[in-house]
């Protein structure tokens, strides 16, 4: 398949015009209505992803990073989930205002998702060939036979050895790494414009993690796709991401181009995360850990949600919610793409 063919299939230009990003999330809120009250999982998230760009969304469990992704994908359980306000613009159109059928046609074809645990995310009683081929049969109306041929082709593309022999195998017959490749093949099947990968390597052996991540990055480049990489692993991010959004208690607390964040974090939470990575050159020293636990989403602390765990917290942090400030150099010169939701970002980055 040549590039020209591909463009003929897909009318919307891949690179688009610079003014409309591929995906734009605006002031997204998500809450879950549970027996114990309303859990506010996402509280006003904004981010954009352009074609060919990789955005890494970083945060602990419960920071709202996966929930945001599920909202984009349209696979939130509603109820108990609810999106009280916000917009999710895909190629300039608000997906939250689309009909179910319109959204369904975007899912899998234009936006695809890779889940964390491939073993439970693949249907245990259907062959991988069937599950891969289903994409072509449903979205492109191919016959069973054609779909199987396509499935083998996709398995080849994600470098699964002996694809032709293994196409009729079941998910449990593959190793963890191979299963995750099948998930990737399924997500890439229709060459979508945006891929959301929710902790794609967390469930894998460390040795396999790098292989899978490299594969994903290669294919992303090849197809010039937008990629949202959700992770809590700072190590994974450094190699593949273009920019980073750090989430805490349903908000973005810091945004930055990838390499800058490691050098100079502008939020105490990011700083804490970076310091808690074990480093060989500090062998023998006690490992840093952010004190306390992630906040209860039923009762998010007033002011800055991070204040009970923050070493720099002052009175203002307990009363006022910090907005995402633009981060600048000490002399006031622009730092493009950087932002921090901390009242004391200056002290953090320059202090």
């Amino acid at each position, binding site marked *: 398949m040549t590039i020209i063919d591909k463009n003929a299939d897909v009318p919307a230009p891949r690179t688009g015009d610079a003014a409309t990003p591929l995906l734009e999330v605006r002031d997204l809120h998500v809450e879950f209505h549970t027996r114990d009250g309303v859990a506010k999982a996402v509280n006003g998230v904004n981010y954009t992803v352009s074609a060919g760009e990789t955005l890494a969304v970083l945060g602990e469990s419960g920071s*709202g990073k996966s929930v945001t992704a599920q909202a984009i994908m349209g696979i939130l359980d509603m109820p108990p*989930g609810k999106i009280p306000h916000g917009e999710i613009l895909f190629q300039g159109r608000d997906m939250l205002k689309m009909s179910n059928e319109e959204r369904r046609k975007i899912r899998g074809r234009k936006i695809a998702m890779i889940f964390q645990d491939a073993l439970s995310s693949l249907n245990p009683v259907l062959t991988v060939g069937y599950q891969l081929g289903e994409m072509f049969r449903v979205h492109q109306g191919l016959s069973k036979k054609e779909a199987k041929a396509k499935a083998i082709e996709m398995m080849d593309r994600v470098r699964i050895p002996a694809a032709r022999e293994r196409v009729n195998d079941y998910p449990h017959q593959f190793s963890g790494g191979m299963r995750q490749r099948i998930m990737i093949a399924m997500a890439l099947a229709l060459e979508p414009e945006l891929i959301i990968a929710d902790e794609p390597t967390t469930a894998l052996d460390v040795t396999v993690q790098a292989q899978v991540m490299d594969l994903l990055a290669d294919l992303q480049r090849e197809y010039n796709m937008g990629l949202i990489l959700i992770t809590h692993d700072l190590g994974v991010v450094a190699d593949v991401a273009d920019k980073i959004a750090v989430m805490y208690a349903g908000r973005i607390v810091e945004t930055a181009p990838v390499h800058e964040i490691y050098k100079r974090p502008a939020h105490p939470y990011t700083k804490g995360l970076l310091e808690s990575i074990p480093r060989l050159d500090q062998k023998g020293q006690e490992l840093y850990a952010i004190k306390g636990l992630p906040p209860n989403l039923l009762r998010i602390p007033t002011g800055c949600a991070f204040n009970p765990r923050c070493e720099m917290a002052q009175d203002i942090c307990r009363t006022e919610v910090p907005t995402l400030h633009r981060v600048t150099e000490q002399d006031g010169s622009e730092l493009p793409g950087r932002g921090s939701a901390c009242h004391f970002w200056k002290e953090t980055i320059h202090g």
Partner: protein
Amino acid sequence: MPDVTKTAVENADPMAATAADAAAATGPAPQAEKARSLWGDAWRDLRRNPYFVVSGILILLLLLIAVFPGLFTSASPTYADLRNHYLGKPEYGKVFSAEWLGYDGQGRSVFARVIYGTRASITVGVSVTVLVTVLGGLVGMIAGYFGGWVDTILSRLTDVFFAVPFLLGTLVVLNSFTDRTVWVVSGALAFLGWTQIARVMRGSVITIKQADYVHAAQALGASTSRILMKHILPNAVAPVIVVATIALGGYISAEATLSYLGLGLPTSVVSWGQDISGGAQQIRTAQHIMLYPSIMLSITVLAFIMLGDAVRNALDPKLR
């Protein structure tokens, strides 16, 4: 993230499965609370379950009736007055009196018989359950823990007893006895009834045997009996309790069926099954004779099944 808090939130709303991310973080609030055990958690859940509350109250009431039937009626269940009361119609105004639910074909008070019949049903139900739990539990635990040829033999033995049709087999056994007391009937039911518990227990023990704390106890040189009693039994018993509670209702129903067929309790014992059977003769003219023992029987079975259901849901939130 401690596991305990996560479970707590998942209990709070099992529907929020895809919201695991959100749910996980809602946890830390109970930081101050003590880490709860499976049973503590289950109990907290049960108290809020209306099915549990209703069935619990019903069962307590039934137990009270079974132990002290005289508290509920002053009429005698065996006093027969054919001349005055033959097929007497119920007099619903006279609540709790002998004539409240009418009289049967021998002129006996249906209400008194319904009340006094409780004891036989409850006794059979409870004693069969105790017997099968002990017998089945023992077989299942030994088979599951020791494995190998012990397991093979015990499992095949269980299969053998399981393959005999339950009701038919019990009828065959009971037909050999002329003096069918409550204990004979219970024994006959338990004779073929223990297989279910044995299978559940075996499965449960096999799972738990592989747990790290059991390996740890073995490595520390704990005796087999200690491991079985202290480590395996307390953790394997939950599904057994659920199955046993639900089965208890089934045994009460089975006893009534046997008595209905004439091979259960003898006529000298007041029992619902026999009264229903007797009432069946008059089904077209005096439905009340059959109706009230049937209702009592059904309520009793229902109470135990509801209780078992509630306990299962509390112990295994996955099932909801």
